[in-house]
């Protein structure tokens, strides 16, 4: 079953190392430099919420972390590998250890939902007999088991986003990058997506880098946890969170990290720019 003890859990030796490490990363295009020396790190099982205005470089940061874009300068390490200096062939191998949820889902529109989810398993040469149950299991996880034979065009925006999450985690990667997973969705569907991210974090210990413009997504991840026993989302009331998951916020502004800290620190910050996110 999906919700068995974590296969994602990293070894104790590895857990002391940062899973994602950005050091003075810069990238620019014809219109100018977008990231101007971004540095941060994410520890195992940590959720980093990247906040920022449109065009602040959130998606770029995710794509650089996944090796889809190469920075102009600076270094990026993911799972102990120097992503910023790897060849495309080496990157292809590394990307199989990470999931990426695109803003609009980016599902293959000529394939059915089941084929989309199974795509990665076929690429990894998983046994054919094993693929079907795993696809069914992960689609059940995102509560879309009944859509396996449908085409992406037959799904709503929220359902497509959930299929995208299913596709990203079907091979159980230790890291998932979420690019504005709730953008353009109604509050109820957004809550469903956040619940899925919570479940992935609390049940499987997935390290996440989540870009969003919605502060409430970050606070939901920081203040709630998924209780596997009751299969329900619960508010963290005790100082020591049962999930032991850490959520931190990074605010990007003008190509730099403007703020980095816990939800409590963000709330306490007496900064006019940060206050605009809190309104």
């Amino acid at each position: 079953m999906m919700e068995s003890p974590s296969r994602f859990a990293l070894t104790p030796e590895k857990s002391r190392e940062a899973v994602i490490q950005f050091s003075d990363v810069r990238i620019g295009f014809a219109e100018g430099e977008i990231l101007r020396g971004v540095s941060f790190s994410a520890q195992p099982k940590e959720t980093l919420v990247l906040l920022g205005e449109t065009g602040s470089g959130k998606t770029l940061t995710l794509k650089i972390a996944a090796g889809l874009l190469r920075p102009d300068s600076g270094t990026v390490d993911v799972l102990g590998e120097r992503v910023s200096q790897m060849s495309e062939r080496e990157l292809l191998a590394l990307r199989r250890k990470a999931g990426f949820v695109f803003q609009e889902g980016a599902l293959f529109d000529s394939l059915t939902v089941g084929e989309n989810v199974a795509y990665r398993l076929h690429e990894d040469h998983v046994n054919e007999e094993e693929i079907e149950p795993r696809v069914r299991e992960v689609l059940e996880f995102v509560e879309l088991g009944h859509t396996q034979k449908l085409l992406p065009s037959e799904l709503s925006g929220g359902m497509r986003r959930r299929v995208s999450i299913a596709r990203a985690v079907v091979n159980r990667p230790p890291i998932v990058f979420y690019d504005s997973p709730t953008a353009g969705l109604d509050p109820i569907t957004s809550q469903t997506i956040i619940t899925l991210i919570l479940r992935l974090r609390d049940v499987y210990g997935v390290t996440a880098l989540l870009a969003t413009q919605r502060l409430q997504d970050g606070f939901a991840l920081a203040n709630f946890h998924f209780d596997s026993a009751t299969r329900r989302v619960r508010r963290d009331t005790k100082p020591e969170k049962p999930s032991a998951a850490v959520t931190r916020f990074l605010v990007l502004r003008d190509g730099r990290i403007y703020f980095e800290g816990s939800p409590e620190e963000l709330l306490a910050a007496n900064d006019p720019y940060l206050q605009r996110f809190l309104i």
Partner: protein
Amino acid sequence: MAETPLQDTQPQAGSPETPSVVEVLVDAAKTNIQKVQEYSKLSFRSLANLATSPRYMQDTLAQMDDIGVGSLPIVLLSGFFIGAVMVLQTGAQFERFGQSSLTGDVVAIALVRELGPSITGLLVAGRCASGIASELGSMLVTEQVDAMRAMGTDPSRKLVSPRVLATLITLPLLTTISVFVGLVGGMVASVFSLRLDATAFWERAIAVLQFSDVMQGLSKSVVFGFILATVGCYQGLNVRGGTQGVGRATTQAVVVSSVLIIVADTFLTKIALFFADKVF
């Protein structure tokens, strides 16, 4: 300080000046050289990928079905009528000298060496280079290509190589069918228009052909197939500007591949005639 917004638009000291004509031409040349370089790299990789795994044979078969079987109706129709019109045009000239029986010779040579490969190449370019460019372009703008890369798949292996291989295999087959149907069309026209004997037409058409003619036609179709597939893939994977860009890439794919096919045809004919004298 500017007092009104309009004053703010006046050129400032040290602001970039309008580029000269030479600078514009140099920039355009650089851009085009870069495009040729990127196209060459993509073309080379599309073939180099075939030498190593993973190879996507299912995708290749699906593309062969789409490009080969899908193009069959237009190739059959156009092939038949090109053969027929060739007979009508040349037959009238031969009749003036009482040499109508030579019609079969001319039609066979023209179809096998030239018209079969080039017309089939142009038709398939119109249908498939545009299809490839629009499909890959749409995948690019909807981030499906990035999604593929994010899942550890090399798009040049998964998307480009199967299309190139499928076209390399199917275009010579389509050309062969087109030539055969063209000869049938020519035979029908010669029987009904020139009152020639069908068997005599066919025997002369076959007898006049040499091995070098067949090789010339088939080698051209392989090159034309490579051109239309790689140009379609290159245009599709270099779309800029959303759905409007996809439309532009589709048009560009047809225009560029058609022009390249015609230009390549000239050089290939010269090379083939050289080898026909020396080798065959």
